Structures are given as C-alpha cells and as structure tokens.
C-alpha cells in the first residue's frame, strides 16, 4: 500500500507483510467451504457428504419420459446407492442434464443434450456421445467432460478447472470468462472465443473466429488453424518447448493429436496493455479472483 515503504516491508515478517499489503484473512461462512477446508480433517479430496460409489456398479436411465429435474434427482439417488457408472439414454436435447455433480462418477450420456449440460460439476468423468447446446460445462471445477460431436456457444463459460473436450466444432464465445482448467476443441471455434479469459488454457485444433481472446487478462490460447482476427490486447507469443510438450501430452491423451504434430500451433496470450491484474492493488486483486 502507498503508506508502507519498501524499507519497512523488508523488516516485516511474511505475515505482517501481506497484511500491510492489504491481504486479509477471513472466516469463510459458506458451509461447504468451511467444512471442506478444515485443517484438522482427515486428508481427503472429496466432499464429506460425497457418496462412496463403485465404478463397476453400472446402471442405465431411460430419460425419454422424464423431466430434467427427475433425471438429475435419479442420478443422485443412484449415486447414494453406490452406482459409479450411470448411462443416460434418449436425452433428446434436454437442458441442464447432469448438473451439479460434486463427486466422482462415470456419467455417459448416449445422445445430445440442450443448454447448460453438465455445468457446476466437481469431479465426475462425463462422456457425451452426441452434441451439446449452449454453455456446456459452465463453471465446472474439476473432472473431465468429453463430447463426441459439436457443441454450442459459450462452451466452458467461466470454468475453473478440469478438462472440457469437444471433438467437433464449437460455437461462439468459447471459454468466455474462463478462470482455469483446460478447454480442448477438435474442430473450429466461433467469434470472441476466450473473451475476458482470466486463466487456464484453451486449445483449438481447427480455425478460430474473429476477436479471439478479446480483453483477455491472462491465460493461453493455442490455435492449430487460421485465426480470423485477434481481439483487443490479444497478442501472439512464442510457442516454447514447454508449450509443445504440454500440447502433445494433452492432445495425445484425448486422441486429438494432429498428424503433423503441434509445431504449427499459434500461441495467443494477453498483451497486458489493458487494465489487468498487475495494475491492481493486492486487495482489489483478491476481490476479483
């Protein structure tokens, strides 16, 4: 902060220094966060109430005559019974299927879903053997989502973690406001992809539409094909060996590795000429992040 000099900061302990710089500790009041981050708790990486599921216990749900609420409720019931692999048949474009799953699970959707599919998830592995509508995987925290066909716009909006993979092409504004994690697109992506991106990585094997990475704060976008245009403050950067190694590993993992390798990828990052995190006071930074 302005009132603290460099000399004073050097004299302080680490704890005093962060306090002087405006960082504050606070007791999180959200019930889940409070329980999850209890330092005395046994070391575990699942939510305390997450059901113990067995991946070898498999069942199917025919969703044809069910509402979205009924399907999502049924998934939770089956998880409580220990089913670790659940297959949804005949989704027929229903919206919001498989949202809010906060523990490990193998979910297979045999068909196409509508809007907001598998959003707000934390942990499950999901495979969708069809197409997804707008805002698939929105706000996902962790886990893996694999889509076999195309996806709609705002694919992976505001994701914070995990791998969101689409083998086909996706619509516009892919990874808008993404805050972490990885989005991989096997085909093309539309306009304004990576708009206001804050962290994480996005890989587009095909072409990207106009205004790619517009107003991005941070994060990295890799594009294998042509870029129609870069947005404000999105600039090309050197593709390092570390980038190539990471791309090779990720694309190979999901069977999307191009025959000609990854050397042709273009790397786009933030030029940081706009108002970005580095210009913010630590306290403001904390508020945003």
């Amino acid at each position: 902060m302005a009132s603290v000099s460099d000399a004073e900061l050097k004299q302080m302990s680490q704890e005093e220094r962060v306090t002087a710089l405006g960082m504050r500790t606070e007791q999180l009041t959200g019930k889940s966060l409070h329980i999850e981050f209890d330092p005395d708790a046994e070391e575990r990486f699942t939510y305390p109430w997450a059901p113990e599921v067995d991946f070898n216990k498999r069942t199917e749900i025919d969703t044809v005559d069910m509402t979205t609420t009924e399907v999502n409720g049924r998934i939770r019931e089956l998880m409580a019974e220990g089913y670790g692999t659940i297959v949804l048949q005949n989704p027929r474009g229903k919206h919001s299927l498989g949202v809010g799953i906060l523990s490990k699970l193998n979910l297979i959707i045999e068909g196409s879903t509508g809007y907001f599919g598998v959003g707000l998830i934390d942990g499950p592995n999901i495979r969708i053997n069809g197409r997804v509508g707008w805002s698939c995987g929105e706000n996902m925290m962790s886990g893996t989502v694999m889509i076999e066909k195309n996806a709609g716009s705002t694919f992976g909006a505001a994701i914070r973690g995990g791998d969101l993979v689409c083998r086909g092409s996706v619509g516009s504004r892919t990874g808008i406001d993404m805050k972490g994690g990885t989005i991989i697109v096997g085909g093309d992506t539309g306009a304004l992809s990576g708009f206001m991106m804050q962290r994480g990585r996005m890989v587009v094997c095909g072409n990207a539409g106009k205004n790619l990475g517009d107003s991005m704060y941070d994060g990295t976008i890799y594009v294998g094909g042509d870029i129609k245009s870069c947005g404000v403050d999105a600039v090309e950067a050197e593709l390092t060996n570390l980038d190539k190694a990471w791309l090779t590993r990720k694309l190979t993992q999901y069977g999307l590795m191009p025959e000609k390798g990854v050397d042709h990828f273009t790397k786009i990052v933030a030029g940081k000429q706009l108002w970005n995190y580095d210009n913010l006071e630590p306290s403001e930074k904390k508020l945003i992040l």
Partner: protein
Amino acid sequence: MCGIAGLIHKGKSSNVGGEMTAMLQALKHRGPDSTGYAVYGKPTEGDYIMRLKVAEAEDMHKGRGIHQVIVDRIAAVEEILAEHGAAVKSKESVTEYALRFVLGHEGDTSVMAEHIEETEGVEILSLGNGLELIKDLGDAADVAGLYGLDKFKGTHSIGHTRMATESDVDIRSAHPYWAFPYNDVSVVHNGQITNYWIMRREMERKGHRFMSNCDSELLAVYTAHNLANGITLEQSLRNSIEEIDGVFTYLVATKDQLGMAKDTMAAKPLVLYESDDLIAMASEEVAIRAILPEEIDTYDPYDEEVRVWQA
C-alpha cells in the same frame, strides 16, 4: 427470449403443420405469450389465400358492441374485394376475429391489400398462393387446435413462440410477420433491433406501412423492400447483417425458399439439422428432437452466417 423454428422438405410435401406444432410446443418455455405459424401449402396459381384479422383477441371482452363492429368490418372487406374484382371462392372463420378467404384474382394484389388495410381494425396476416399465416395468443397446442393446423400438408414452415419484450401481448405484435404487400413472404425473429426507429423512418419514407411497434416487423418490411427491388433473398439476408444493428437470428420463408441470418455477435441461438430431404432449425435442439427423436448430427451456425434452402 422468444423461440423460432423452421423446417423445409425438399421436393415433397409433409404434415408441416403437425411437425411445426411439435417443434413450437417444445419451445413453449421460451415464450408463452403468443404462437404463430407461417405454413406453405401447395401453391395454387391464380387463387390467393388471404388470412386476416378484424379485431384483437382481447377486444372480444370489450362489450357486446364489438360483434356488430366485426360484422361491419367483414362487410367492408368484402366490398373492397368486389371492387377489385376478386372472386371469393371460400370464406371461413375459425374465430370471430380471424378469417380465411380463398380468392380468385388476376393481376397485382398490392393495391387491393392496401385498400383492405385502410379499414379500421383490419389487418391482413398473409396473402399469397401458398402461404397461410396463423397467429394467436397461447401456446402451440392451443393455436394449432383452434385453427386445425395439426394436419396441414405443405413443403415448409416457420414458427415462433413469443416472449413479449419490446411491445404488447397481442396478435398484431405476434410473429410471424407477413412482408406486406409482397405475396408469400414471412419472417420470424429472435432478438432485439437497436436501430429500429432509424430504419423504420427510412422504410416509412420509402412508402412502407407498419402495423405494430414490434421491432421484428422491421425485418419483414426490410425484406419486402429488398425483394421488391429485385434483390435476391440471400443478398437481402447478407445486407441485413450490415444494415441492421442489434442481436438477432431470423428466418425468412418465401413460396419456395427458406433462409436464415445471424448477426455479427452470434448472440441469439440457432441449431441446424441438414439432410438430403429435410432441413430443420430451431432455437433449441429440443425442438428438432421433437420431430427427429433418433440420434442425428446438428450444429450451430457461426456469426454473420447466411443460408438459403430451396423447397
């Protein structure tokens, strides 16, 4: 929000009324205020189908005097038809305020259409050889049931479920819009047009009439203006992306074509399915699945995309 849908069969007729009803019913959650259809039957050269309304649905609750007003308005319309030498081959009224005429008429119908609309409270919903435009308050099942659309045979259709954001909940603000006075052209739109008043005044200066304050009507008038000036449907759709501001996805149908255009931001959704004999599109996949439950390949068109299909 609004929901739009369109389908076109290539080279054959189908029950497009029933199919569109299923699609629009699946989109009911996008707009419960009113539902509209533009369905295209087999064109009958020389015969014109005219759909018109002589009052608003809510007018029917405004006292007993309205019934006599409606009778007078219909008589006035019939008088104008006779003046223009249009032979009334059939006349049906599904509701008291909505009528369907089959007319024998030779030559230009635009002057006749203008004269009919000079009658207070009368609006031609559609006029053409193949187009029938039906719109009323309520969901798709209500409107289809009321107007007997479930078994309508035709080649293509567009439809709309409306959530009123820019103007009133009434039939005059419901979609689709007929591109007055251009026969057989209809438009459905999802979005908001931000240079509506500028464009409206420009169109009015060129002599076009507006029946409502709904921004979507502009697209119908704009398309009619372009087509009347010899611009192709595809070029008109392309020009609209440059000339019209706002967020929009809209569909235009003519006697034998169906076209779509998406704005520069791709801010309004559309899902497309294409096969050799059927093209279906809708704001949500769930509408396409209502008529094609089997697993199919669909995709989202990108920004500034324009497509036109031939029946």
